[in-house]
Structures are given as C-alpha cells and as structure tokens.
C-alpha cells in the first residue's frame, strides 16, 4: 500500500508539471497579449518596450522557467483587469466555489446512493420505474431552469429561502440542490446497476447458501462491492462539480471562482485565467489521488497490482 501511495503521489507531481506546460503554451498560442494591453495606435517602440517589460522578448525556455518560478511562489502576475495579484483574486473566490461544490456533491451522493439502492432492490417494479424516470427528468433539465424555478417557488412565492447571494446556510440550499439534482441521476444509475450486478453474482449466491441474511448480503457485501465503481464515478463527479458550478453561480449570484474565470475569459485576462486553471488542476490532481487511494482501501486487488 505504501508503494502504491508513493506511485500515485509521484504521478500527481508529473501531471502538475504537465499542467504548467499546457497553461504556458496555451496562453501563448492564443495571440500576443501586448495588443490587448496597448491602445490600437501604439507605436512599434511602445510595443517593443512592453514586450521587454513582460519578458516576451526572451527565449521561450527562459520565459517558461520564469513562469514556473512564479508558479512555485504562487505568483501568476497581476490581473489585467483588476490590477491585483491573480492568485489572490482566485483564492479569495475559491472557498465559495468549494463550499458549493462539496455541498452539491454530498447531496447528490446521499440521494444517488439511497435511490440507487432502493431502485436496485425494487428492480422491475413501479417504484424502480418512478425513480429512474425522475432521475432522467432531472438530468435532462438544464440547471439554470431548475435554479430559476426554485427561486420562483421557494424564494419569491414561499419566502422560505433567500433568492441569491452567499449569506449562511440558507443561501446554500438552493444552489447546492440545483447542482446536485443534475448530477444525482448518473450516480443513482451507477449505484443501481452495480448493486444489481453484485446481488446477482455467484458470491452472493454462495452467501445465500451459507444462510446469510438479506440485510448482510445487500448492505455488507453487495454495497461494498458496488462502492468500487461508485467511487470511481464519484471522483469524476466532484471534478465536474468544481468545474461546473459556473451556471449555478451565475443564476444565484454566488460569489465563486467559476464566474470570475468566465469573466476573465471574456476579458482575455490571462494571468487570472492561468491562476484559475492552475488551481482547478491542483484540485483535480489531489482528488484523483484521493480516489485512487480509496480504491486501495476498499479493494484488496488494487493494493497488490
């Protein structure tokens, strides 16, 4: 297990280095920044001066080395628009995004597993069909529509919850559920099919031969075996959630990182985009390591690979 852990960590670091290369190259591919920063009638000399100032006149490897040096210190330069350190801006918005993503993740995990198990046990009955149909409806409905409808009902009509903003637990409920409803369907289906597959497996047949109770078969053996595929998918889901909060952040005026990055893209605010992409990548890499390690904890076959 130690070797396995070390290997995952080293792989994570290698990936991170790859990320810096991609961010560096991609930002250079999308055109020369100087024309964005200077007025259209700038002279050749002004352009050359700015290029020198930004270090763009140096060899590409030197530029990359400087970029990595900055990254290592958390320095992505100043946001072109806000005139503040880009990393600082991203980090100030990060907690809101993480809060929303993890809340949505938790909600979709709970309802996804719950309904997945119920549907698997009720396989082929009306209950199974109702759950599956409901899941498809939520998955097929765009989150912005669900969000707006939720605001209309729970905030405008019923006055139960605040319409928007980030002010305590109340304001988290609607955005989190809106995001979760979109993602729970996939989790539910994965759980359901994994549970059905395991319940029909030979080892469950042998458990029945042993005289095991239905409860132990479903919750101890089938559930634990299903968790292998559920966790693989849940990791992917969390990644999607962190990257996919933008729309919900916009609908609910949630002051998160997603809306900041979208704004940065429209403004071609490169330092801000780079800092944002870097932070998201760091999270994805860490998440993948956590997912891989939890496989190792659950499934002995992974440990001995």
């Amino acid at each position: 297990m130690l070797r396995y852990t070390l290997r995952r960590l080293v792989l994570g670091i290698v990936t991170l280095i790859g990320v810096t290369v991609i961010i560096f190259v991609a930002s250079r591919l999308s055109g020369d920044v100087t024309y964005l920063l200077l007025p259209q009638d700038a002279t050749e000399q002004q352009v050359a001066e700015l290029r020198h100032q930004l270090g763009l006149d140096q060899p590409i490897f030197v530029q990359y080395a400087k970029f990595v040096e900055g990254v290592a210190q958390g320095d992505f330069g100043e946001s072109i628009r806000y005139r503040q350190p880009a990393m600082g801006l991203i980090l100030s918005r990060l907690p809101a995004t993480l809060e929303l993503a993890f809340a949505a993740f938790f909600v979709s995990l709970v309802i996804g597993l719950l309904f997945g198990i119920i549907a698997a046990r009720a396989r082929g009955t009306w209950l199974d069909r109702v759950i599956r149909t409901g899941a498809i409806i939520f998955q097929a409905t765009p989150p912005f529509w669900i969000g707006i409808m939720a605001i209309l009902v729970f905030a405008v009509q019923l006055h139960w919850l605040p319409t928007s903003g980030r002010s305590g637990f109340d304001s988290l409920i609607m955005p989190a559920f809106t995001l979760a409803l979109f993602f729970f369907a996939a989790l539910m289906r994965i759980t359901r099919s994994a549970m059905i597959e395991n319940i029909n497996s030979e080892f469950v047949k042998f458990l029945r031969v042993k005289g095991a109770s239905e409860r132990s078969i479903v919750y101890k053996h089938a559930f634990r075996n299903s968790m292998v595929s559920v966790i693989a998918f849940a990791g992917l889901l969390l990644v999607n959630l962190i990257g996919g909060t933008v729309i919900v952040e916009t609908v609910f005026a949630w002051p998160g990182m997603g809306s900041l990055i979208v704004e940065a893209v429209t403004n071609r605010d490169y330092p801000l985009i780079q800092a944002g992409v870097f932070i998201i990548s760091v999270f994805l890499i860490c998440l993948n390591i956590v997912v891989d390690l939890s496989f190792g904890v659950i499934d002995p076959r992974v440990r001995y690979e």
Partner: protein
Amino acid sequence: MSAPPSTTTTRPEARPAAAPRPGRREAAAGVPLLDIADLKVHIHTQGGERIVKPIEGVSFTLNRGEVVGIVGESGSGKSMTALAIMRLLPPGARYVSGDIRLDGDSLLAKSDGEIRAIRGRRISMILQDPMVSLDPLFTVGDQLAEALRIHGVVRTRAEMRERMVELLRAVGIPSPEERLRQYPHEMSGGMLQRIVGAIAISCDPELLIADEPTTALDMTVQAQFLELLEGLQERQNLALVIITHDFGVAARLADKVLVMYAGRVVERAPVAEIFDNPRHPYTRALLGARPRAGSTGGKLQSIEGSPPDAANLPPGCPFAPRCPAAQARCQAEDPPAVVINAEHVARCWYAETL
C-alpha cells in the same frame, strides 16, 4: 458415523465438525434424510405467455451418508434441482407441484427465516466456479468466520480461530493461519474450491450438494478435489448430491445415479447397474459418448441433435426426437416410470425389452 464425538474441537484427530449439536434429531427409522417427490418447477416468462419447465417431475430419496450422482447434459435441470433443494430458485421460478422433505419435514413449507437457518447449517452447497464464489473484498478468514457466526456454532474468538484452522486443515490447505489472512485473488482455483468446501462444511451439515464442483478446475486438480470430497463425505457421514455431466465422477463417488433429461429423471439406479445394465436409451447414449481408456483413436460418439427447449417440450417422450429406438408411440405419449427392480427405474416405454 455411529457416535458423534461429544467433546469439542480440542482433539486434533477429531473431525472438523465436532461440536455436538443440541436439538438435532436423530433420523427416525425409515425416514430418508432427503425425500423429493414429483417435483416440478416452472418459470413464467414476461407476460406469462411462455412457460419454461426446467424441472418436470423429479423424485428420489437420499439417506444419511449416501451419495447420489445426478448426471445429464447442460440444461437438463440438474443445477435447477440443486437450487430447488436450497430454496434458491431464480426470480420468476415457482414450485408447481411436489415436495422436498428434509428428515420428513417439508422445506417448501418453511418461512424465509426458517430456511436461512437450515441453509449452511443442515444443507450446504459447493458452486461450480470457485473463482467467483467468494466475495473479493473480504479475506478468506472473514468469509469462513461469517459462516460460523451466522449459525452461532462457536462461542469464543479462540474457539473460532481454532475451528477455522482445523477446517482448512481438513480440506488439505497447508499453513492455514497464513491463508486465513489472504484474499481470494491471492489463491489458485483448486485452493479456492477447497476453501469453498471448508465454508460449506463449516457448520457440519447433514446434506452437501456439489454442483459440478470440478468443472472449472484443471484436470490434475479435479482428481485431488474429488478425493477430498470423498474423504469428507466418509469422515462426516455426509449425504452428498453430486451434480456432474461426467459419468466418471458419478462412478467414483456415487452409490446411486440419476440420469436427467429435459427436467425429468429418465433413469435411476444403483451405480453398478447404471453401467452394467442401462435401461434408458439416453443413458446408453451418454455412456457411449464418454471417452474411455483403451479406445484409442477414432471419434467419440456423440448424441445426434440437441436437448429440447424447456419452453416447448414435445408431446411424447422428450428424448424421442433423438432416440435411435423411438417408435410411433414415443412421439405421442410420455412414457411412465417403468420399475425394473426396487432400486432401478427407467422412464421409457421399452425399458424392459430394450
């Protein structure tokens, strides 16, 4: 076994299942351990317009310490019969008629809870493929302990430990303490089938069903496992139902043989008689189809055609379309069980004259 040992598992030479069992009745004289009478199991497929008949009239009895071999092609209803005895029929399958009695007590009348208390404790089973019979996420020790715990056959941790080691020894597994800590994927198929065997006999059952227990194993390991099964059966005085498509396996272990075809027992006889004096054309065909030492070269005989669709059985004898001796009558009327002698029955119109 005449007198079960009354002491617990401390004696190394004691059989693995040594705990005395309070409340276990001694067999009433004349009542067989297992008594299956005219069992029929049907499966109604979706909408109910198709009825599959995997078991269509199976009867036999089995005494303590007796071994019956059930032989037939795939799809003949052998495995379904095993599942029917365990009350583990697949969804949709129903007991249509007949009864299964254990010690004179109907298993079909038991509640789910009652049947769970019997499974693993009084009737146990070894499945075909050992590689998938165990939960991959738990150690062998966990899964063995689970069986013992379900039926409460051991009281203390020390007793549990001792008992588990003893069981693994009984199935011929070297360094059992180490093996208990291992996971199924760390073991070979032959080793796993021994583990499955150890779990199956862990609570000292009276009846063990082995459903093609060697089919998934390598040839050399097959022989070893059969030897083990034979030893366990004798030592523990187990009643054993061995399901196989291989007459050799039946010849080696069984006292009597049932030949199944299309969900029914077409011939039932003591093992010697099945080989010396088979009375059903299907039995003869099966015996002709098996490879024999000495008959070098030449092709194996095969049985023309394939078994009938269990959802669409012909009106007469189900074997008639493939039978070399079939007459007009065979196509029209299902033959009754013809009694050759007290032990020997064949379901063929011409069983006596063939």
